[in-house]
Every structure is written in C-alpha cells, then in structure tokens.
C-alpha cells in the first residue's frame, strides 16, 4: 500500500479563477451568489446562482477548441492546467503510460444539450454542429485532460450526481494507493447554469429564491453553482523523490449507498460513509478537527448530516468544526466535492477553517460548531470531506496534514 498525497490543485468557480483567489475569498467569507445572467433567465422562478465571472473562453482557447469544449470542459482544462503546473510534472515514457485521469460530473455538457435542443425544437432547425456529441459527452473533459497532458493510463468519468467528484477522487486515490498508478489527475466539474439546467432543478422545489444558508434555522434551500476542481494525486514516495511540494495527504475514503430513497437522504448512509472513511484511514474519531459538510442548505440534508455527525463522533461532535462552503460558491453538483476539497486543504495547510456564511439563526437540529460567518484560524491535523448524492450515494474522503 502506497501513501497518497496531493501535489497540485486548480479551480475555477464563482469565488475565483484560481486556487489562491478562491482560498482568499473563502477566508474572507465572500459570497459568489448573484442574479443569474443567461438567455431566458427571466422565464425562471429561481433567479440566483453562483456563476463563474470573468472566464473568457475566447482568450483561453482557440476557435477549434471552443467548437469541442463545452463550458464544463473549459472549466476542467483551466483547473487542470493550474494543478499540473503546481505539481510541476511532465508526463512522458512510463509515467505517462501509467498516469491517468478520473473526473466527476453529473450532467456533462448540459449547455450543449440545451443550445442544440433549442435549435432543433424551438427554432425549428434541422441541422446541428457536427461536434455536438463529442462536446456534450460526460467523459469529454477527462479525455481532453488526457490528450492535453499525455496521460495514457486509466481515464474515465464518474457520474453519481452531487457525489460525482468525491467518488472520482476516491477511485483515483485507490489506484495510487494500490500502486496501479503513480499519479492520477482527479476532481470534477459542472456547468448546469443555463435555462434548461436550472429549469429542471426548479421543479423539485428545493431551491432557494434568496440565499444559501446551510444549518441556519431559516434556511430555505440550495443555490446552484458551477465550476471545476482538479488535483494531482501522487504516490508519496514518488513525490518525495522529486522534491515536490506536498499540500496534504489523502488518508482514506469510504463509499456507501442508502438503498432507501431516490432523493431523501439517510442518516445511516451518511454515518456509515464517515465512519468507513475513518476506519479506512485508521483515524480515531477524536482526531478529526474539521469536516467540510455536504451542507446544501436544504431542510432535509442539513439535519440528516448533523445527526450523522453526532452518531459517528458522539461527544467529539461538539468539539470539531463543520462548515458548508456551498454558502459561498453554491452547489457545484458533480464538481462540488472537488471545489470543497480546497477548503480542507486550506484547513490542513494554512490553518484556516472556511466559514458557513449566511448563517442567521441557530437550528436545534443542527447544533454543531458550523463556523458561522467568519473564518477561523486553527491548526487542523485531520479533515473529512462529505458528499451525499441524490440516489442515496455517499462518498467521504479523509485527509491529513503532512
């Protein structure tokens, strides 16, 4: 069994177009949520979201690339570029043949589907661009990362709704730990902020009209975000041998299925995932200083998640910190676990715990230290990152300071 460390991180999300900008925003408790700005937004009943601002595809990619890159792929490639540059790796020879890419996305090229359905159904066109299929497919982003950096080993995409990127990163971790791959590029991405993407979510009646306030008694739902988070997971010995800067260690993971309901979360499924990650990492519950919560801001998730934390951590639940950064960058669906992993890295590496902003009223069902509104300077040695998806599919990662 190999130890696995993170040697590179990259992101694009509503808080920033890089990791330093995103962490600075998390530290300041900034909110990336605002009025939605895209075609037909006026026909939506939900008009807010955490849209990526200032991302100019035309200056980053050429015409041929844009014809092939849906927005979720554009975000992924930008995040991967930052992560791989930080890791300072060049992939050639045996390393290239064994290193791979595992990314999560729930919807893939949603705006490509949306634009082209609009063209054929609404506008009555009988012809679409030849690259619609390779642009919208869920594995497009993983394949383009593989092509751009010559990653020729295992490469695939995981789609488990809101847990996609945690499942992807857990799988990448397992491959590096087992010795199958010395390096894996992993994380996830989502870009559903278009008319059809938000319209679909609206139907569920779980979206907030005004703000994402996880754990607050007056919370009234989730707010969608968009973006990508990409990391370089590397065999510890490989990283040490080349003198790489290590951001933190990935110590373990667990995946569970509620096997109960397609949308309602289960305390048992969440608890088994957190406990399983601790067991896999050989970490005692009382070592955990911080949990990055799934914390969607819905009535159902937040109380279920807090009950699960109390079940797993017992008395220690009152001593650890748990925050939901979705209050700032929105729910990035299949990419959310990846962007949220940045908050864990900040806690472990910089000793800064990101806050849950928008917190207004204590809820007895969520009576934990949710780091309300203001970031905290505390040295954290062990952190968990939770993701609990529709479909009852849960994935939790355990991380350790190096």
């Amino acid at each position, binding site marked *: 069994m190999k130890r696995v460390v993170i040697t590179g991180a990259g992101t694009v999300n509503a808080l920033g177009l890089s990791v330093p900008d995103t962490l600075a925003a998390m530290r300041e408790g900034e909110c990336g949520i605002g009025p939605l700005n895209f075609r037909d937004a006026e026909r939506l009943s939900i008009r807010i979201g955490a849209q990526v601002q200032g991302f100019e595809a035309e200056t980053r990619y050429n015409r041929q690339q844009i014809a092939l890159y849906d927005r979720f792929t554009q975000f992924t490639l930008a995040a991967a570029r930052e992560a791989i540059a930080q890791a300072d790796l060049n992939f050639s020879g045996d390393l290239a043949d064994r290193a791979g890419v595992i990314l999560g996305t729930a919807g893939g090229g949603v705006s490509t589907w949306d634009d082209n359905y609009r063209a054929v159904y609404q506008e009555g066109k009988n012809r679409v661009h030849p690259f619609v299929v390779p642009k919208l497919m869920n594995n497009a982003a993983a394949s383009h990362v593989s092509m751009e950096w010559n990653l020729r080993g295992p490469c695939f995409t995981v789609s488990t709704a809101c847990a996609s990127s945690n499942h992807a990163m857990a799988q990448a971790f397992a491959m590096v730990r087992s010795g199958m791959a010395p390096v894996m590029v992993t994380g996830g991405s989502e870009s559903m902020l278009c008319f059809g993407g938000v319209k679909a979510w609206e139907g*569920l009646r779980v979206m907030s009209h005004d703000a994402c306030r996880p754990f607050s008694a007056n919370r*009234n739902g989730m707010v969608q975000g968009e973006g990508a988070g990409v990391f370089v997971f590397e065999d510890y010995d490989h990283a040490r041998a080349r003198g790489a800067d290590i951001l933190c260690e990935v110590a373990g993971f667990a995946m569970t299925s509620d096997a109960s309901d397609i949308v309602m979360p289960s305390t048992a499924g969440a608890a088994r995932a957190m406990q399983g990650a601790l067991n896999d990492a050989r970490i005692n519950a009382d070592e955990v200083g911080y949990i990055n919560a799934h914390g969607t801001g819905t009535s159902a998730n937040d109380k279920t998640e807090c009950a699960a934390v109390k079940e797993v951590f017992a008395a220690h639940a009152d001593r650890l910190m748990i925050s939901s950064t979705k209050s700032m960058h929105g729910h990035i669906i299949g990419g959310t676990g990846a962007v949220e992993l940045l908050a864990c890295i900040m806690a472990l590496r910089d000793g800064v715990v990101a806050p849950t902003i928008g917190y207004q009223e204590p809820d007895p069902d969520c009576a934990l230290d949710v780091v309300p509104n203001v970031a905290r300077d505390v040295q954290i040695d062990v952190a968990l990152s939770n993701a609990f998806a529709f479909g009852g599919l849960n994935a939790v990662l355990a991380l350790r300071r190096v």
Partner: protein
Amino acid sequence: MSTQDKVITILAEQAMIAPQAVTLDSTLEDLGIDSMGVVESIFAIEETFEITVPFNANTPGENTFDISTVRSIVAGVERLKAEQG
C-alpha cells in the same frame, strides 16, 4: 368537474387510492403522500388549473399555499385561480 373534485382526483391518483377515500378533512399524511408526493401533486395542480403555486419543500409550514388538509388545498386553488385566472 368542480375544482374540489379535480383536486380530489389528483390527490387520489397520487396516493393510489379511490377518490371516495379522500375527504375534505384528510391530511396529505393521512393519504400517505410523502414530501416528494406533495411536490408532484402541486405540479399536477399547476398543470390542471394553469396556475403557479408558490411552494418551497424546505419550508412547508411557511408557504402561502396551505397544504394542511384537502379543504385548505381546494381553497388555495380557488384563490390562485381568482388571482391568476
């Protein structure tokens, strides 16, 4: 069919029971309609009556559309039809 009969038909279909088993005093819980069943019923009501029902599943007690009984739902639909019709 009256508004009341249409609402009862929608709820009975959602609950997979006979319309005769639905009374004005029935609660959705009595009928065995869970939170996602409520969301589906409201969608059916919106489509049937061509109205928009303000409803957030996170805050069922705070919505202006009262779903506490079949009677309150019928009254709510009547009100929205008058307002939006």
